[in-house]
């Protein structure tokens, strides 16, 4: 196991995320399900990591814990050096709001409001003024190539466009970490590649990217691949032959 563990090149720098013996279990009546058994890992600033593994291996569970949407049943999770389990709802919400941008397989846009309003949503919760909110949301939507779709509702957009709105929403508070749970799972290969191009550009700009995927092609974009099985880390390796997407989306973020 230890030989497969990835050792960061600059070990003196503190990791942004540090999980130590994290377990997450669910009690279903008298049965206990281990979504995560014993996971330890560290991720540093500007890493590009892919979580892989068969269905039910615990990828999403791990992602949710990292994203402060869920908390470990046991073990320790330090976010930027702080113990997440001791944080209250307000502090967790603030991390989700400012430090983390979530991208979901099913986009999770609010159906009744426009693309622009969807992108504004995180800013509403960071207490940004209306004018500033509009400006920033417009900026980000433009940078993901949706300048002409801002007033559209989600059901008036294609899957790829929806995912780009979702990415814009994830980016709008300028978080350093982007978490994407099967972001291309509902998209065709071409559109999926465009989305991966966006992540590539974000990574180049210094963001930390964590992607959950089933597909080797998608995982190939990452610099580090972590494979899960039955709630444990099976393999944690650097990706020697990174795939750099041809459609390197230009991303003019401020």
């Amino acid at each position, binding site marked *: 196991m230890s030989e497969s563990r990835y050792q960061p090149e600059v070990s003196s720098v503190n990791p942004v995320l540090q999980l130590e013996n994290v377990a997450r279990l669910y009690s279903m009546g008298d049965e206990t399900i281990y979504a995560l058994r014993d996971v330890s890992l560290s991720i540093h600033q500007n890493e590009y990591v892919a979580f892989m593994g068969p269905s039910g291996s615990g990828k999403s569970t791990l992602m*949710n814990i990292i*994203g402060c*949407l*869920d908390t470990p049943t046991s073990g320790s999770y330090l976010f930027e050096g702080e113990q997440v389990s001791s944080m209250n*709802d*307000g502090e967790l*919400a*603030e991390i*989700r*709001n*400012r430090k983390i941008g*979530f991208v*979901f397989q099913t986009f*999770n*846009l*609010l159906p*009744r*409001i426009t693309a622009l309003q969807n992108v504004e*949503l*995180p800013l*509403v*919760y*960071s*207490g940004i*003024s209306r004018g500033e909110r509009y400006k920033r949301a417009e900026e980000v939507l433009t940078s993901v190539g949706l300048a002409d779709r801002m007033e559209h509702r989600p059901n008036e957009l294609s899957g790829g466009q929806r995912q780009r709105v979702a990415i814009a*929403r994830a980016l709008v*508070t300028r978080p350093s970490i982007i978490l994407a749970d099967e972001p291309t799972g509902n998209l065709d290969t071409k559109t999926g590649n465009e989305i991966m191009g966006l992540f590539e550009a974000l990574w180049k700009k210094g963001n930390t990217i964590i992607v959950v995927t089933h597909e080797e092609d998608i995982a190939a974009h990452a610099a580090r691949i972590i494979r899960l099985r039955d709630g444990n880390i099976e393999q944690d390796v650097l990706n020697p032959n990174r795939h750099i997407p041809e459609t390197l989306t230009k991303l003019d973020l401020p």
Partner: protein
Amino acid sequence: MTRIVESIRPAFVALAANKMRAVLTTLGVVIGIFFVLLMGWVLNGLDSAFTQSFAFFGDDILYIDKFNWSGGEDWYAQRNRPKIDFRQYGMFKERMRGAEFVVPTIDRFSTNVRHENLQLQGSMIFGTTAEYIDMYSGITAEGRFFTETEAELGANVVVLGQKVNENLFPQGDALGKTLKIDGQPFTVIGVLPKRGTMLIDFVDNMSLIPIKRFFGLYGSRSSLTINVKAGGKERLDDVKYEAIGVMRSVRSLKPGDDDNFGINSQEMFSQFIDITRGVVWGIGLFMTGLAFLVGSIGIMNIMFVSVAERTREIGVRKAVGATQSRILLQFLFESIILSLIGAAIGLILTSTIAAFKDQIVSGVIALLSLVGLAEGDTTVNLSFLSSTIPLTQVVVAVVVAVIVGILAGIIPAFRAARLNPVEALRAE
């Protein structure tokens, strides 16, 4: 502040998506607010009707009478009290120092007053002295009141109340005419202005004649009332105290004896007012409470549905940084707005009724007379009710609606706020 504004917006988006449901949900609140406003409106009307009505009596006038008007304790004992006769009035007036006016009145119902072929049954004949008109404002609408001489002589003159005047002289030509009261001829020398309201219209349904003539006509068996005007409300207590003493001396009561007469004032009516108010309140509160109970259950129910339908939305909001309190506020506002929509509808409904009260009542009467439940020419005087809902009532309604909204929304909102984000995102 911005937090509040930001919490209101999604509430409107959500409600707009289900307009019909929103309106139907508020039905209970609509009815509740409707009752609150209606009750306030009627109570307000009653209050002003009472004040207007009893203003006629004057707030500085005492009525020494055989009976205590507030009724109450042993009415039988009161029945056996000696009557107040004209001689006692004379003695009382002579000894009374602090009063502005001391005027005797005596009345009798069930009389027949006729002029040519028009006649009036059961109106009131009122015997009094010339001072009566001075005690009550001193104004006649037409003609004049009888003079001291006429009163002293027991002349055959009559001053008509407005209603008697209208009934017997529809042309308004009463002055100088001779009419018959229980067969005896009287010359009309004056007409009083309208003094009554819906609540006490007997004051307009009377004919005033010299008290001496009254005794001539009906004998002097019944007891009279001594009207004592204090000349200012602040003097009322002093005058009352003196009047009791004087009346006791007139009656030659010994120190240990109970008063064998009643001292009454306008305030006696406040009991009657309080009872009426109490009844309106009781009915109103019951109906309102019931409506609000139904209303808040309706809103609570729909809020639970709303939370369930939007579980995923809640998950998304949490994932992008909404705290529990923001989610709580959002749903609480949704519920308050729902309730306020109900209040607005209720307000519109009640205002419409207030504005068209007369048309509505005459419509109802027309309808009832169609099925034979009412006389076609029945009229109801609703002038004591204002044609707008008072602003204070509106404020009360809004406050009540907000409270109902909070009470109905708090549990669903808490449920929404406490949703686990991961599970919420997995919903549907």
